[in-house]
């Protein structure tokens, strides 16, 4: 190493810097694990978030890193959920961690087999094929006796995790179990995307024609990542079954596939945290709106999405929040809210070029200010 020319050392530094842990990441995980102790009353929803985050992480592996769009990712989630349920119900594998891993392997097998369907064709054909696979599986689970049909898999009793930690009614065990699983699988995913294999996936996503022209077997790489992602989704599904001791047909629902796609787009693709952050935001907003506004919460969720597409993630969310808060403060009825919101969106839409100019100026100032703070910090350090 000491024999390196400076430029080689510099190049190594550039390459390795991508995999270095940033302060943001460290804080993210400290906060996540701190929630075990500080948010005890929220463990049920936190468990849902962790499971959804793992599911979104799985979609990010194929969409964000390999460019494969899917509207049927719930196929693997649901498959893992049912396998875990059947393993527990029939006492085949009693210990939850082993059962979860077995469910992941089963989902990987399904992912491997179905991956050949997504190799060819455009994004549109991929959307249709993935959607079709999920529909087929849902119908199979609906018709078979062993899966309990429309009633779902009932009578699942979970043994303690690793033989020691029994699932409790407050959901603490389930949350710690889900979070630790998410963290370990996140570490593996982080390793994968920063490896030569991960780099080759990015090249396949960026330009498959050129990737094959430098000797990369594009299809094998796509099969590999699809199989891995299916395993991740299957484990997420298994966690849901184990945490709720129940598996129903809803695990295969189209909404589940669509939601996870939305979550990933809200959080951003291709940097692994998008699905995790998206899950937190999605679940919290959904939970809050469903409490305040049980009938119409999806209207407000829709507003957030439209504004995000028009004005970017941050500014769009802020504007949607302002409109929502205004409607709430004025104590408008739902019909009045709809009318005001539609007018506001139309006006904002017409003024979009001017607004984008303003927001980009704000972003530049904020970046400059942040750089200033960083420089000051470095000087004093």
């Amino acid at each position: 190493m000491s024999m390196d020319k400076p430029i080689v050392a510099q190049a190594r530094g550039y390459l390795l810097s991508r995999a270095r842990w940033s302060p943001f990441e460290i804080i993210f995980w400290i906060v996540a694990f701190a929630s075990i102790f500080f948010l005890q009353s929220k463990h049920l929803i936190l468990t849902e978030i962790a499971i959804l985050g793992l599911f979104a992480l799985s979609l990010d592996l194929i969409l964000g890193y390999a460019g494969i769009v899917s509207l049927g990712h719930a196929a693997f989630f649901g498959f893992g959920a049912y396998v875990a349920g059947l393993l527990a119900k029939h006492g085949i594998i009693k210990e939850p961690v082993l059962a979860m891993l077995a469910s992941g392997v089963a989902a990987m097998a399904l992912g491997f087999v179905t991956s050949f369907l997504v190799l060819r064709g455009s994004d549109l054909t991929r959307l249709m094929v993935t959607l079709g696979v999920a529909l087929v599986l849902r119908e199979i689970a609906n018709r078979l006796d062993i899966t309990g049909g429309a009633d779902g898999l009932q009578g699942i009793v979970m043994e303690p995790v690793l033989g020691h930690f029994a699932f409790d009614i407050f959901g603490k065990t389930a949350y710690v179990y889900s979070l630790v699983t998410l963290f370990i699988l996140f570490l593996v995913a982080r390793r994968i995307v920063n490896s030569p294999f991960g780099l080759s996936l990015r090249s396949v996503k960026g330009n498959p024609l050129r990737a094959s022209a430098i000797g990369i077997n594009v299809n094998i790489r796509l099969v590999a990542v699809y199989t891995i992602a299916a395993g991740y989704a299957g484990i997420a599904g298994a966690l849901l079954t184990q945490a709720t001791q129940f598996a129903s047909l809803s695990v295969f629902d189209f909404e589940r596939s669509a939601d996870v796609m939305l979550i990933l787009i809200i959080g951003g693709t291709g940097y692994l945290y998008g699905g995790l952050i998206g899950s937190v935001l999605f679940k919290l907003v959904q939970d809050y709106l469903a409490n305040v506004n049980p009938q119409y919460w999806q209207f407000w969720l829709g507003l957030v999405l439209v504004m995000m597409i028009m004005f970017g993630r941050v500014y769009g969310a802020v504007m949607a929040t302002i409109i929502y808060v205004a409607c709430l403060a004025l104590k408008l009825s739902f019909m009045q809210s709809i009318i005001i919101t539609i007018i506001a969106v139309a006006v904002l839409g017409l003024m979009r070029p001017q607004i984008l100019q303003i927001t980009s100026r704000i972003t530049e100032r904020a970046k400059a200010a942040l750089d200033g703070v960083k420089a000051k910090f470095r000087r004093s350090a």
Partner: protein
Amino acid sequence: MAPVLETKGLVKEFGGITATNDVSLTVQKGARHALIGPNGAGKTTIINLLTGVLRPTTGTILLEGRDITSLDPHKRVQLGIARTFQINQLFNDMTPLETIGLAVSERLELGGQWWRLVGSKSVVIEESVEILDRFHLADVMDHRTGDLPYGKQRLLEIALAIACKPNVLLLDEPAAGVPEAERHDILDAVAALPKDVTVMLIEHDMDIVFSFADRISVLVNGGLFVEGPPDEVARDPRVKAVYLGEEVVHG
């Protein structure tokens, strides 16, 4: 000397159009072979057939005597055929360092490894830096490829093919769209290739063709029209006629 690359009766039809019409080419090892012809003569189609992007309707392609007609593109690269594209085909969201590093690690069969970090193999880094340096890309190796000036992207386009260490290099208009001042960078890089690397060049600029090639094939309407050493081709009245845009008169 045995030919390194050979095509026999190569035909490619798209619907009713014959893009490649019964082309039988022989390229000797270490040759500097130029493929010229008017627009639409089917030059790029031949490159696509040789690299496996397209499959011929009939005919065979031999690499060092081995039939590669039905091999996938990536397998042909592994056997030593690399190409550049007429219109840049790069990985815009990656850096030149990552791009070249990727090609080098794929060639060394390290590309499938998922447990190792990018940047942990010294052989890959050293070779990548050497290539980047040779193509005047070392100073921008950590920039986003999509943000580089066109001339630099063009150099990367060629460097990427070189990083595959080909025995046969197919260059599809390497200097296309490059400003005069930066052209010599690209031409020098091509001229500096080892003598045992076989190069096939598609080019419109006749100055480049005649200063580079030791053998020229002229394609017209998908078919091989004239082939020979540069001086012979230059003197051929039929070639002049084609380049002046006149109808070909068969005699």
